[in-house]
């Protein structure tokens, strides 16, 4: 049994042998492969299916899933419930009619597990009845009836587990827990873990990919009480929680996928403050870190909310776990994010609850609809501002060039806004919004999102308290570097005129290799703490935030800015032209808001300083920085202290979100050659991790090349 790590240090062993074996089997695809046997339920035998409304079809599907999906009880599991239909792994409601999939499912949300724990599903059912008594509009009444139908289906599936668990006394504890939760409130830690898991598993069974959110905040008080009552030991609690993590690997199927096999937006958030500003770090926080450290499970990417008040002990534990590599831990700067959300207009009673959408975009869990719209600003510069290098672009000086680019960027943002408005709303001739268009049914997630039941409106039709559409700027570092190269080479040093320069770019640098090398080697680009270059990034961020803000507040959907690529630098590559900072067409450029690969020469602190110069608080849904540290540089106690220093520095400087990974290029290359020896080796992609060997070759190469 080998839980791969990039580190030379052995992973510690705290869990019992059977739990470790369960983890190993899960990571080695035993349960994921099982899902291939039953991809979906068939709806062909349902009388009159074709004539049903979408909502009726949905209810029928969920009922059939609940009635017929295979029940899986893994040998020795401490918590039960499993999402056993294979099609769910592909982001679809796992049901087929005449050979076709019927509905897409929902992701990028973290549902309200708090209500599940404190009031149970029965409490939610009461809310639906109350809401029904208030609403009379047909669509709302139909939606609320669908909520009841979904809860009934959930209950059916729940009963099937009870019946199965009754058959084997080995699962007496699982049975007792499930007799209480999730329908009634959880009374202790073990029940609480089972309650969250069972609800999570049901949502996933129906095809959805929710995140988990602040697990230590959700579970901390239960554990504290159990420990005080001496009804549970810390070791036992660790075993229980480990089973939650292990069962979270039940969709791992092995083989190669574009972006890996662990991308199901199951993010967890740790630590941070409560409403009064007190640090909530508790025993659950440390148990999660123990489990990640021992098993290296990367399916729940875990982000720690750091602040100036983060306990030294947590900083040290996080650094220790980080050193095993795998990129499982990432960090939010709580001080900056609380400020960002408050300034954007979130009320104080919600701000402190922030977690993410299951990836890294910040949101208030359990009450937020979230969608982001990515775009590539490098293509705007190349294709619009510089007109595909056709030679028509003419600018007297850098300011003229920049202003035209900024104008093109603003236009793009306006475009995104109008497109999304048309997609979501019926509008009148003056483009005023009339009402939401009907969307795909999504009752299962809607019952766990505050606002939906009260309003009688589904998650996708504006039900949640907060509805966020966030344009995400991509290709930002390369745009900054391109503009900087033009500024230096054409306008400052006057080595070539702009039209001559564009000719070189149009030729993909062919025949101009010496200039290309000069531009690559002689300028200090974004990520090197060079104010002259970084200031271009500061300007673009400010202009982008302003463009979004001007459109905000025109409807119930908010329109905050964010920065990301999420690996799209690969997808965008064929549409991008040769870049002005010396890269030929076809090269894979910068991820997220991180330096162009190979351009950072001054170390991690310089990268962080470059990144922090812009007003990141205006990037309300987030701006990710990837930092790759060499294994050799974080060796030993000195290396540990260095990581802690790095984390402290990023809070002090005002980073938004950092996803550090510690990798060894040689190990990654070795894993590419001998995948059989590195089945469990994890790497950070962006917001999610992947077992390296399950990435396709292109993605593997991209990760290797991001390492110096």
């Amino acid at each position, binding site marked *: 049994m080998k839980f791969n790590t990039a580190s030379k240090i052995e992973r510690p062993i705290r869990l019992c042998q059977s739990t470790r074996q369960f983890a190993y089997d899960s990571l080695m695809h035993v349960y994921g492969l099982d899902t291939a046997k039953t991809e979906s339920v068939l709806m062909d035998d349902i009388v009159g299916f074709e004539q049903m409304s979408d909502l009726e079809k949905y209810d029928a599907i969920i009922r059939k899933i609940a009635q017929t999906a295979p029940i899986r009880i893994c040998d020795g599991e401490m918590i039960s419930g499993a999402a056993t239909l294979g099609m769910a792994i592909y982001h679809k409601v796992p049901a087929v009619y005449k050979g076709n999939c019927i509905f897409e499912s929902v992701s990028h949300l973290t549902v309200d597990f708090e209500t599940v724990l404190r009031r149970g599903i029965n409490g939610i059912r009461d809310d639906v009845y109350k809401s029904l008594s208030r609403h009379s509009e047909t669509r709302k009444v139909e939606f609320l009836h669908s909520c009841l139908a979904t809860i009934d289906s959930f209950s059916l599936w729940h009963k099937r587990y009870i019946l199965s668990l009754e058959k084997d006394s080995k699962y007496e504890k699982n049975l007792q827990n499930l007799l209480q939760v999730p329908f009634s409130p959880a009374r202790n830690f073990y029940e609480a873990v089972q309650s969250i898991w069972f609800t999570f598993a049901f949502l996933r069974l129906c095809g959805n990919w929710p995140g988990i959110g602040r697990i230590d905040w959700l579970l901390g008080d239960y554990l504290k009480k159990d420990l005080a009552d001496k009804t549970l030991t810390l070791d036992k609690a660790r075993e229980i929680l480990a089973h939650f993590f292990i069962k979270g690997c039940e969709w791992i199927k092995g083989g190669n996928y574009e972006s890996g096999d662990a991308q199901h937006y199951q993010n967890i958030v740790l630590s941070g403050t409560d409403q009064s500003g007190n640090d909530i770090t508790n025993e659950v926080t440390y148990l999660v870190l123990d489990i990640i450290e021992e098993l290296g499970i990367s399916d729940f990417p875990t982000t720690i909310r750091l602040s100036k008040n983060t306990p030294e002990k947590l900083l040290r534990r996080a650094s220790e776990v980080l050193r095993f590599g795998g990129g499982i831990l990432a960090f939010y700067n709580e001080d900056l994010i609380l400020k960002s959300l408050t300034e954007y207009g979130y009320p104080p009673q919600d701000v402190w609850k922030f977690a993410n959408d299951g990836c890294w975009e910040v949101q208030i869990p359990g009450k937020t609809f979230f969608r982001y719209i990515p775009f590539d600003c490098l293509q705007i510069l190349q294709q619009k501002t510089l007109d595909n290098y056709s030679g028509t672009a003419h600018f007297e000086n850098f300011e003229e060039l920049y202003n035209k680019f900024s104008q093109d960027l603003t236009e793009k943002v306006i475009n995104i806004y109008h497109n999304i408005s048309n997609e979501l709303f019926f509008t009148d001739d003056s483009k005023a919004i009339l009402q939401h268009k009907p969307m795909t049914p999504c009752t299962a997630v809607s019952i766990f999102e505050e606002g939906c039941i009260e309003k009688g409106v589904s998650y996708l039709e504006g039900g949640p308290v907060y509805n966020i559409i966030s344009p995400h700027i991509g290709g930002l570092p390369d745009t900054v570097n391109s503009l900087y190269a033009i500024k230096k080479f054409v306008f400052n040093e006057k080595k070539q005129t702009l039209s001559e320069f564009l000719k070189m770019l149009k030729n993909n640098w062919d025949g101009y290799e010496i200039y290309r090398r*000069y531009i690559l080697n002689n300028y200090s680009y974004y990520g090197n703490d060079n104010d002259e270059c970084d200031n271009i990034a500061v300007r673009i961020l400010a202009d982008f935030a302003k463009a979004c803000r001007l459109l905000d507040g025109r409807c119930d959907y908010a329109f905050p800015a964010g920065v990301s690529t999420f690996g799209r630098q690969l997808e965008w590559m064929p549409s991008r032209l040769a870049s002005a900072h010396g890269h030929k067409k076809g090269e894979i450029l910068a991820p997220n808001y991180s330096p162009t690969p190979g351009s950072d020469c001054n170390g991690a*602190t310089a990268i962080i300083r470059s990144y922090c110069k812009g007003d990141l608080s205006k990037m309300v849904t987030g701006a990710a920085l990837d930092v790759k540290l060499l294994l050799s540089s974080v*060796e030993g106690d000195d290396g540990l*202290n*260095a990581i802690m*220093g*790095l984390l402290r*520095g990023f809070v002090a400087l005002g980073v938004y979100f950092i996803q550090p990974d510690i990798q060894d290029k040689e190990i990654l290359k070795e894993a590419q050659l001998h995948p059989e020896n590195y089945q469990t080796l994890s790497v950070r992609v962006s917001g999610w991790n992947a077992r390296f060997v399950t990435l396709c070759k292109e993605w593997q190469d991209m990760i290797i090349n991001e390492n110096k």
Partner: protein
Amino acid sequence: MKTNDKNIMITDIQRFCMHDGPGIRTTVFFKGCPLNCAWCHNPETKNPNAEIMFLAGKCISCGACVSVCPVGAQSLLPNRVFDRKTCIGCGKCVSCCFTGALTISGKNVSAENIIASVKKDLEFYGEEGGLTVSGGEPTFQKEGLLYLLDAAKSENISTCIETCGAFPADLAEKLVNNVDYFLFDIKDTNKQRLKQYTGAALQDILLNLFNIDSMNGKIILRCIIIPNINMNQEHINNLLNIFSKLNNAEYIELLPYHPYGNSKSEQLGRKDTTVFQRPTENEILEFAKALQKSGCIVKCHGSIIK
């Protein structure tokens, strides 16, 4: 620049260093060294003056340097040649080189500007980290060094010096006032061998070491280890003897020899490089354990050996 500011000839200011003293540090590499170690890891810092480095692999024979060289030291035909004997070190070729094949090692930077660079990472230093002066041998530029250390201290920045210990005896007292940690090299403890491979006199180095110790300067001993040179019992005994007599030495840090300096020697046109045997991971650990068992506190690969 202030009138009393001092210029220092350095090769580089390296940020985010994790193994040059406690915490995260910014390391400044001074040029010039009184020793001549056969295994030098930073050969570009030996010469006190600026030098031109040429990395043939990056050269694309564009000829830009040929046209600007005032003395004809650069030629393209019949072969690409950089004639160091003719070169006057003016650096014109470096500033026109497109590919970065020609670089200059050595720049005069004012202490004030060095401090400004060091302050960029203040947020990362915490209570431990700060400035490390290295090289080369920092004491080789005595005045600039003392000025820089004083400036750092007046900004409350922690200071470390990496030194080979070969400096005038009267300097020790001045250093102790402004240095938080002496990363003090003991390259070998065999008098003849040390002379043979580095040119240094062991007794002068030890005199400085004990002098600093007597003034309560905090010391970390740094020892390069090279198979068939100093990885032997005699060296272990001698190190123990030194370590146990020091009152302010915290531990001995082992620096396994690596040949990475050689490529820089080639770029400097030096042909006299010796390649030593690189210690294996096992040899390193065995030596570290033996030294620790003898009674020393030993740090290796960033951790104190337990």
